[in-house]
């Protein structure tokens, strides 16, 4: 049989087979913790001082009982969930363990749907509204359309444009929301799920501490926000999840993903090297 090694279908097939093979026996492998992950955990654990606006530096003392944390599910969480699942679970577990008050907003219907299916029931059951935490240490605004325009309005008043939570309950009547309205002062920590623009709305003007979670490659387009000093830390991908599990001591499954990545990375590297050697030799011949 004449096999065409550059046939894309063959490449696709090899990648699939390796993924299936490595998934059968997930093995935990050693990983160094990268700088942005260390900083992420340090902010949650010890806090940080933000002074991007030099006029009024803001000190955050870490997540403690009653710390008001807003989670902005406003990036591509639904599309990236398979690369973010373990990290978000670990961080959420840690926030609850420390007694944080969590306010959740989803910027799109698919972002709301993915958390509804894979995260919210894990912590709050199938009927979150009836959970004892609801209204006390967790409130879900659900999908609200508006993106940046909402975040701009919410900095002075959340309730002025979004009077109800996702279930139609008036925010004014919810105990947790009593001192959670003007986000520029009422929010102690913002965690973005693959969210962008938080720096220009909250950090540059109000020095709000902002942490970011995304897929492995979200670091590509979030690099500016980290390198320029707006984001105080980042957790990226399943690898970031493994790092957070290690740093926080919360058990999880994130490190199981590393075997698969390693196997494919090795195969691709070998294919690139062999292809290039062939290319250089053929060029020399001609």
């Amino acid at each position, binding site marked *: 049989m004449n096999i065409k090694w550059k046939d894309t279908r063959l490449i696709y097939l090899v990648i*699939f087979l390796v993924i299936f093979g490595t*998934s059968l026996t997930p093995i935990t492998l050693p990983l160094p913790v990268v700088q942005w992950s260390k900083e992420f955990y340090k902010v949650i654990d010890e806090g940080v001082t933000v002074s*991007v606006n030099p006029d009024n530096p803001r000190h955050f003392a870490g997540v403690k009982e009653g710390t008001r944390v807003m989670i902005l599910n406003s990036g591509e969480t639904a599309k990236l969930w398979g*690369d973010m699942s373990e990290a978000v679970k670990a961080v959420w577990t840690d926030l609850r363990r420390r007694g944080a008050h969590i306010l959740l907003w989803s910027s799109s219907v698919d972002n709301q749907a993915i958390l509804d299916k894979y995260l919210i029931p894990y912590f709050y059951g199938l009927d979150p509204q009836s959970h004892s935490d609801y209204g006390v240490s967790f409130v879900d605004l659900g*999908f609200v*359309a508006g993106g940046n325009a909402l975040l701009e309005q919410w900095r002075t008043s959340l309730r002025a444009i979004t009077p109800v939570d996702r279930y139609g309950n008036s925010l004014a009547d919810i105990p947790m929301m009593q001192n959670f309205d003007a986000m520029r002062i009422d929010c102690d920590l913002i965690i973005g799920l693959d969210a962008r623009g938080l720096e220009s709305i909250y950090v540059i003007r109000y020095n709000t501490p902002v942490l970011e979670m995304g897929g492995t490659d979200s670091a590509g387009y979030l690099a500016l926000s980290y390198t*320029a*000093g707006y984001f105080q830390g980042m957790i990226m991908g399943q690898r970031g999840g493994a790092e957070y599990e290690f740093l926080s001591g919360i058990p999880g499954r994130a490190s199981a993903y590393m075997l698969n990545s390693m196997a*494919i990375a090795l195969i691709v590297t070998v294919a690139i090297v062999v292809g290039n050697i062939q290319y250089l030799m053929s060029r020399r011949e001609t």
Partner: protein
Amino acid sequence: MSSPIEPLMPYLNTFVFFAAYSVLYKDNPMYRFVQSLVVGIGAGFLFMAQIDQIVRILVPSLPQPHAVIALVMGVAFFCIFIPGLINIYRAASILVMTVGIGIVLPYGVAITWTATLGYSQRLFTGLGPFVAGICYALGMSYFLFTGRLEKPTAPLRTLGRVVLLVYTAMCISMTALGKLNLIQWKVLDALWGIPSTWFIPVGIFVLILIDAFVYPFLGVKKAKEVESEA
């Protein structure tokens, strides 16, 4: 409350995921079925979510001025269907767009200024910040437009291009690795989820093998082929 169709969902879930991949082999009815379903269900859900936004948030905000104007703008959008009133629709859509630009335009300037200052103030505070500052300056030089500047700055623009390409090279690998996790997440779910659904991708794979080597039945004729046959 759960849906009566919930027990079927793990199977549908796995079928949709892996049938979407079958297009990598070739265009086929399975892929087109899934594609049509994703578009249709997405459209229907999006429609209902917008109705919910109106009922849950807009209507309770009436008669506040912003809610009333929003309602008027909503009606204005529908003027797209009335040729004589098309300019009313245009006014509404241009307002939406310019308000959008008005919100985000200062963001760009704010980041431009504070980030540049940051790179500058940290330039000699360590190797990393020094490299970052220089690379930022080189990267910016790539985007110079004038032909007059192009010649004397050509070496800088070339170096700037290399800096942008370093980003590209790193990004390509990280993207591939990140998206790989998505596949494994679903594969793990198919293998170890309850119920286990691994036989669905295997079944699709067997179908593809039969099509490739035994009996070709997964074909969808291209429009051009249909035309030439006609």
